[in-house]
Structure formats: structure tokens, C-alpha cells
């Protein structure tokens, strides 16, 4: 029996090893055949996007128009997407990471330069979204959405108006503040409050930001560290203050009109999520068609209406209030529209993330764990 067990064990191990080897080979095979068959009917595209980040009817529409079968998958965060890509567990062609993750992927040579000739709708993207710090020469990306990270608060649970990041660390809101569960954003907010750049690599500044958060945590200001749980907690009035994305605020506002969104006077972070094609993608031409399709004005309008995140398509941005009126028969609340798509003046006060050097990333991670000790 023992021998048999050992034999089976050895066989399975060998099998699992050779399986991984096979899958690598297969990638190459289908990579070739993918290119060859790109003119006949068997076209496939593997997409990875965030959850709830597209008007799903657009996927069907794209499939009908092009005959390409879309394998649509979602990732939870930039970090988990990166981890998926690193472990080789995923074979996506086209992904939609945020700015700082894009610059990290470019740095690690994981993306391929795009052929913008095949993406004519790229012209419709506003200039203010091109050549940003994460892709300065604009070789790898086509922006998909953008927005700001600000403070969401419940007007009935807070005295007066909130205008500053200081409210996150204020004793007045003890036990009622939700810290965003992501070291980059949490430290970013503190850095802005202290008047530093969100991209600082100065250890003293980062440690100062850490002290600010750690001290507030010690005083019991934070109720918890949250990501998607924020919806429930804010909508049902279980917490007074949170930091989250403008697009998600609009979703929460629909369910609880007591909620307000503010970009603090110290400035804030603004982000861009953009489509990129992975270096080892097997379906490049399909991916280009996908990116082009989503950059079109029609798709952008449908998406804006569905996910409440602003599109970088200038035409779509201009037309949206009109589109809203046609679709719903009422005027769009311009105040909400300005939260979704703030003006360039507002954006000037905000800063984009770029990738931090590995040393600083390790510091962020260590401090973040120290916060949880």
C-alpha cells in the first residue's frame, strides 16, 4: 500500500508539473492560431475589468457587432490583479488597471505598446487625459474612466460642513470614521492633509503620515477599515465619514440623500483607469477593437449612465446632460454631474498617483501592518 501511495503521489506531482509546462506551450500554440484565425469566425478576447464597471449590454453589443466572443472577468483591486498576473494564473489580453498600477506594469515590461492607428476613437479622448505621469509618452494606454477620491459624509451625523481632511482624524467623529482599506489611499489622504505629495518617497514624510493615522486609530476614531462594505455602512447610517470614489458616492447618494461628497480644500487624489494590452496577449487585434469600441461616444455615454464614473471622451462629457434628459425625461442635477466630472480647475488641485519605488512600497506595507498590530 505504501509503495502504491508513493507511486501515485509521484505521478500526480509529475503530472501537475508537466501540466504547467503544457499550458505554457498551449499559450504559444493558440497564440499563433489566434493570429491566423483572426479573419474567420473563432475570435475570442479575454477581458479583465473591475466589478460593476461597465454597462453589461455593451459586451453583448460588441459581440454582435464584431463576432468576437468576450470572456469577461473581474478583479477586486489593482493589487489582486497584479498578483493574478504575476502568478501566471490568468491569461487576459486586455486589462483596465489604475494609473499607479499601469506605471508599475510598464516599469516591469508587462504591457505592449498600442497601435493607435487601429484605435481611431482615441482621438476623441480629451487632451487632459493624455500623456499623464503614468504613461508620459502615451504609448500603452487608452483612458477609460476618471474621477476623484474624496470624503463622503452623512449630513445628519456631522456638525456643520466638512471641508478638510482633518475631519478623518478629529475626535469629534470618534468611532464614526471609515478608513479606506488600502495603504496607498489611506496614506495618500494623510499626506495631502500634511501638505506633502501623494507620490513622496521621503521616509520622514511617510512616517509622519503614518503617525497621524496611528494616533487617530489609538484614540478610537476609526470604526473599521473598509472597501466595498462602505456602501452598506454609509447608506444605512452606520458611520458618518468615509473616503471613497466619486462614482461610488453617486450610487450611495441614490439610496441615501443625506450623504454629501466633498473634495477637501487641501486637494485630493484624482485617478484614471485605462485599458492596456498585456505583453503576452494572444488576441491583440481583438483587444484593439474592444478598446476602440469602448472609447466611442455611444459606449462612453452608456457607461457613464450606468456606472456613474466619468468618461475621458470629450464629446460624451459634453453630451451627457442632454443624453440624461432624453433618457429619463428630466434635467440632470448639475451639482451631481460636477462631482462625477469635475472641471479642469478642480483637477489642478488634485494629484495623480504614480508608481512608488519598491523600497517605498515595502515601507508602505510594513507601516500598514504595524497599524494593524
Amino acid at each position, binding site marked *: *500500500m505504501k509503495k*502504491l*501511495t508513493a507511486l*501515485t*503521489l509521484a*505521478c*500526480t*506531482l509529475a*503530472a*501537475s508539473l508537466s501540466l504547467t509546462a503544457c499550458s505554457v506551450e498551449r499559450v504559444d500554440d493558440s497564440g499563433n492560431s489566434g493570429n491566423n484565425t483572426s479573419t474567420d469566425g473563432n475570435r475570442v478576447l479575454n477581458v479583465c475589468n473591475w466589478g460593476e464597471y461597465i454597462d453589461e449590454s455593451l459586451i453583448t453589443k460588441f459581440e454582435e457587432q464584431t463576432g468576437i466572443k468576450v470572456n469577461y472577468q473581474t478583479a*477586486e*483591486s489593482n*493589487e*489582486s490583479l*497584479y*498578483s493574478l498576473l*504575476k*502568478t501566471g494564473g490568468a491569461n487576459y489580453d486586455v486589462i483596465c488597471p489604475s494609473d499607479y498600477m499601469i506605471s508599475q506594469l510598464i516599469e516591469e515590461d508587462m504591457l505592449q505598446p498600442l497601435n493607435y492607428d487601429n484605435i481611431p476613437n482615441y482621438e476623441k479622448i480629451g487632451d487632459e487625459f493624455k500623456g499623464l505621469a503614468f504613461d508620459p509618452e502615451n504609448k500603452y494606454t487608452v483612458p477609460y474612466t476618471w474621477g476623484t477620491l474624496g470624503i463622503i459624509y452623512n449630513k445628519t451625523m456631522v456638525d456643520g460642513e466638512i471641508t478638510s481632511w482633518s475631519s478623518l482624524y478629529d475626535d469629534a467623529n470618534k*468611532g464614526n470614521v471609515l*478608513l479606506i*482599506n*488600502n*495603504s*496607498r489611499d489611506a496614506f495618500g489622504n494623510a499626506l495631502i492633509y500634511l501638505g506633502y505629495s501623494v507620490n513622496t518617497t521621503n521616509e520622514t514624510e511617510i512616517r509622519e503620515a503614518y503617525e497621524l493615522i496611528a494616533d487617530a*486609530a489609538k484614540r478610537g476614531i*476609526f*470604526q*473599521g*477599515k*473598509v472597501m466595498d*462594505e462602505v456602501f*452598506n*455602512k454609509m447608506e*444605512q*447610517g*452606520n*458611520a458618518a465619514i468615509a473616503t471613497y470614489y466619486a462614482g461610488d458616492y453617486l450610487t450611495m447618494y441614490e439610496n441615501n440623500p443625506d450623504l454629501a461628497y466633498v473634495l477637501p480644500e487641501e486637494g485630493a487624489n484624482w485617478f484614471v483607469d485605462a485599458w492596456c494590452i498585456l505583453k503576452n496577449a494572444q488576441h491583440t487585434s481583438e483587444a484593439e477593437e474592444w478598446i476602440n469600441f469602448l472609447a466611442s461616444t455611444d459606449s462612453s455615454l452608456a457607461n457613464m449612465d450606468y456606472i456613474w464614473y466619468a468618461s475621458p471622451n470629450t464629446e460624451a462629457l459634453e453630451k451627457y446632460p442632454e443624453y440624461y434628459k432624453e433618457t429619463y425625461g428630466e434635467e440632470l442635477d448639475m451639482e451631481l454631474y460636477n462631482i462625477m466630472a469635475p472641471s479642469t480647475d478642480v483637477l489642478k488641485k488634485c494629484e495623480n498617483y504614480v508608481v512608488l519605488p519598491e523600497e517605498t*512600497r*515595502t515601507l*508602505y*506595507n*510594513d507601516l*500598514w*501592518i*504595524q497599524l*494593524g*498590530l
Partner: protein
Amino acid sequence: MKNKRSLLAIPYVGWMALFVVAPIIMVVIYAFTTADFSVTGENFTRMSTFTVIFTRSFKLAIIATLVCLLIGYPLSYAMAKEGKGFQRVAMLLIMLPMWVNFLLRTYSMMSIMENNGLINQFFAAIGLFDLINHVFGTNIQYFKMIGTQGAVVVGMVYNYLPFMVLPIYSTLIKMDNTLLEAAQDLGADTATVFRKVILPLSLPGILSGVTMVFVPSVSTFAISRLLGGGIQMLLGDLIEQQFLGGAYNPHLGSAIALVMMVIVVACMWVMNRFGEGEEQAVML
């Protein structure tokens, strides 16, 4: 003949090799290497930084296990003693929640225990807070439950209680009644019968129950994040952070996981010594 029958184990052995043994080997390899896979012990030198998290996780898991045992044993005992009808209803009530996804259940626990959740709304509706504020001159609107260690323990007990009840119940129900009668005939009173006969005979069930509650409790991350607010990390959060957090470091994550596994196995080994000779004791 014997060999032929053991062929039947091949699917299981293959399964275990692929999904249990191979991953453990990978964890060990990762734990002892750096990002470029050169051998190192560096990942373990940082472990002392995490002592607080290790202590907290084991403390909460031990408390949850004890609470499960204190609730689970009497319940199993009652179920084994009562008639078929009670057994059936009790079993249904224990199994029913397990048909719902674990995360969903934890999410609903969250909205029950929120500051503005069902429990606090109920207390407010019956005027409990008014009463307290009136008597003690305080000004409270709710009891803080979410974000506390107590909430984490409640979540663990709620989710893992069935794993305590079922093994104990199955040892108790199989117990030979003639043994109890013999003990009584020999002059033992109820307490002595329980202490000298029932408890030792049900020990295997207790041991497997304790294992099945303790192990998932010590490594949970969903419960601590949803109910504990994630302000104070548990081991599961710490490990998750290494794989899905800002600094992608599966090597450190594997090292932490390995240390945790070793400690858990050591705990289980010590515990199973108590039940030595009880061959049914299940070692997971």
C-alpha cells in the same frame, strides 16, 4: 486481495497529492526563498514583529472554541437524550444556516450588529437607551458591537458551532446505554456517571469538534475584516495582505502561513495526547 481493494484509494490519494501535498510543498519552497528563488531564512527573522498578531489570533480562536464547546456539548447531550422529533428539529436548525454561503451569513451578521443595525434598533425601540441614559445620566445612542473583538468571537461561534455539535452528537448517540446502566447498578450517581463514563467516551467527539472549530477560527480573515472592522489584524488578514496587499510578497506570506501551520499542528498534537488510546479522535 487487499492490494486490489486499495486501488480504490487512488482517486483520493491523487486528489490529496494534487490539492494538499503539492500546495504545502510550494508553501515550504516559497517560505524559504526570496523573490528570485535563492534560499534564505530571512522571511522568518521578521516573524517576531508579528507576535502581537499571532497572540491575538490564537487568543480569539481559543475563546471561540471554548464558547462553542460550552454551548455545543449540552446541546449535543440534550439532542442525544431527547426523542427522535427533537433530534430532527434540532438537526435541521443546525444544518439550515450551513446551506447559506458563509460570506453571506457573515455579511448579515454585520448588518445585525452595526451601530444602526437590527439589535441596536430593537434596543432603541423598546427604550433601553432612554432608560440607561435616564438612570446613569449618560448619552448613548447605541452599543458598540461592530469593530470589537467580541464581535469577531461571536462571528466565529456562529459560523463554526455546527462543527462542534455534530461530532460530539455522533459519539453521544452511538454510546452503549448498557454501560450507563452498569455504572448506575454499581452505585454511581448521575454526576459520577457523567464524569467517569459519558465524558471519557465522548472525548473523541470533543477533540474532533475542538479541532474543527479552532483551525478555521485561527486562520479566518473574512470574519475579522467584516465584523472586527480590520483595525486590529488577525493572522488571516496578515497573510492575505502579503498576497493581495500593496507590497506583493508571497514569500513572506508563505513563511507566516508555515509558522501558523506548525503552531496549529503542535497544538493539535498536544491536545490529541489527552485522547490517546481513543482511536476515533480525528486529527485533521
